[in-house]
């Protein structure tokens, strides 16, 4: 409770003081992502204010996506540090995140036959947070990929599984998009929240298409970087 500050001598509304002090504690690192916040009643009793005021402060913080209320569990800080990735090297997200010191998992959610290949849907997590929902159409090395899936218990490295001969070019196309239905649900974000939609085409050295992918990355705590070193 120490991080909540309400000074009754000030003219500023109590709910605003409360919201600002919690935000400050998040910014200063006193409160971290996932930390539990006290119930309205506890805050109201402690500061001798109305429960409505305490709720108003939480409403404001929730609207700004700084906290999250989970039914039956309580209120938690939601603050993930922004990760900045170089856009140029967006060819293997798993390696990129690992280099930055995050754990990275790719879980297979769906597999289907399509014309001349295989269709997969995967969900990627970095340090346990869902970061991407991806759809893949694989046109080459399908057998190698299926073997990898069988042996790796549903979690696998896409590129390592399919690369058996030198890669050629890779095209990534970054398109602004607002999250809709399934993507929002999978990424655990509100519909209409901004997301990165990235369409990728990977070719082998003879310029034959190996795979295409459509990836939705959460924009909540991810940024890309372009330019000189």
């Amino acid at each position, binding site marked *: 409770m120490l991080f909540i500050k309400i000074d009754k001598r000030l003219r500023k509304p109590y709910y605003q003081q409360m919201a600002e002090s919690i935000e400050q504690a998040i910014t200063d690192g006193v409160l971290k992502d996932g930390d539990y916040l006290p119930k309205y009643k506890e805050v109201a009793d402690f500061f001798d204010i109305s429960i409505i005021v305490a709720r108003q402060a939480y409403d404001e913080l929730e609207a700004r996506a700084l906290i999250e209320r989970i039914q039956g569990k309580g209120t938690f800080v939601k603050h993930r540090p922004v990760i900045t990735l170089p*856009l140029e090297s967006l*060819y293997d997200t798993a390696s990129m995140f690992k280099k930055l010191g995050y754990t990275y998992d790719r879980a297979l959610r769906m597999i289907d036959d399509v014309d001349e290949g295989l269709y997969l849907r995967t969900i990627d997590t970095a340090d346990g947070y869902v970061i991407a929902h991806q759809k893949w159409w694989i046109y080459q090395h399908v057998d190698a990929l299926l073997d990898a899936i069988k042996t790796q218990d549903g979690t696998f490295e896409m590129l390592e599984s399919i690369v058996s001969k030198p*890669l050629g*070019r890779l095209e990534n196309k970054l398109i602004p998009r607002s999250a809709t239905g399934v993507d929002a649900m999978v990424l655990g974000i509100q519909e209409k929240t*901004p997301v*990165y939609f990235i369409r990728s085409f990977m070719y082998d050295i003879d310029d034959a298409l190996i795979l295409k992918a459509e990836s939705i990355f959460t924009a909540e705590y991810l940024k890309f970087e*372009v330019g000189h070193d």
Partner: protein
Amino acid sequence: MIKLELDHRMKRSMLDQLVDQLKKYHVESRLESGETFPDYQAVATANALDELLLEDAYYRLVKEGYLRHSKDRFTVFRLPFVPLESIRTKTMYETIEALQMAPSFVTLRVEFLPNLPSIFNAAIHPGASYVKITRLYFADQIPLVYIESFYDKPLFKGFDSLDFMQLKVFKYFQDTWQRRIGSHHQTIDIVQAPAAINETLNQPLDASVIRFVSETTDQHGDILAHAIIHTSMLYAIESVNLLHPETTAL
């Protein structure tokens, strides 16, 4: 088929509501440039809407650059992807020219500021003064990019005699100081733009945009400009990676 719904309680006109929803469909559908957009008569029938109203909405999308109209059909228009190389080194004018479209801009505002906005994390220099120029860039008269640029005021010689409405700033720097663009360093994120910017870019008011926070340096690596750039959904970036043929283990 496109699902369209009108909310009669909304203040926004029925035409605007349809235009907003069609733009969303345009962006979210996987239709490529040149593919046929669903026939407006069929869409009107399926959604029990007035055909003429829907036809008007389609023509608005043509006017705003989302669709093309030829013979009896409407086709999807998307910009060619902007190569990553271009956003590293070129001016916005050159980037649009490289897409083989006609660039133009209007200057919306010219202001003076004592400091750079906090988004740049720049140190505060007492006595410093910046010129902020807000511009809207068009490609073939379609509004594409909303740019707020910030320059050190002393970079403009003979300040009062300059016509900021028309001035091509980087060309001016090159002609006056022999300083040309070395590179842009940019962070890219996708944000929900303020409604006023979305309106200027002819987008649905709650649409997402690409935002670049950019720092431009000259050929010697010295800072030449800062900018906050919002680009419409019609604009997208292509990052082409040429992998070394021997790169097999990624």
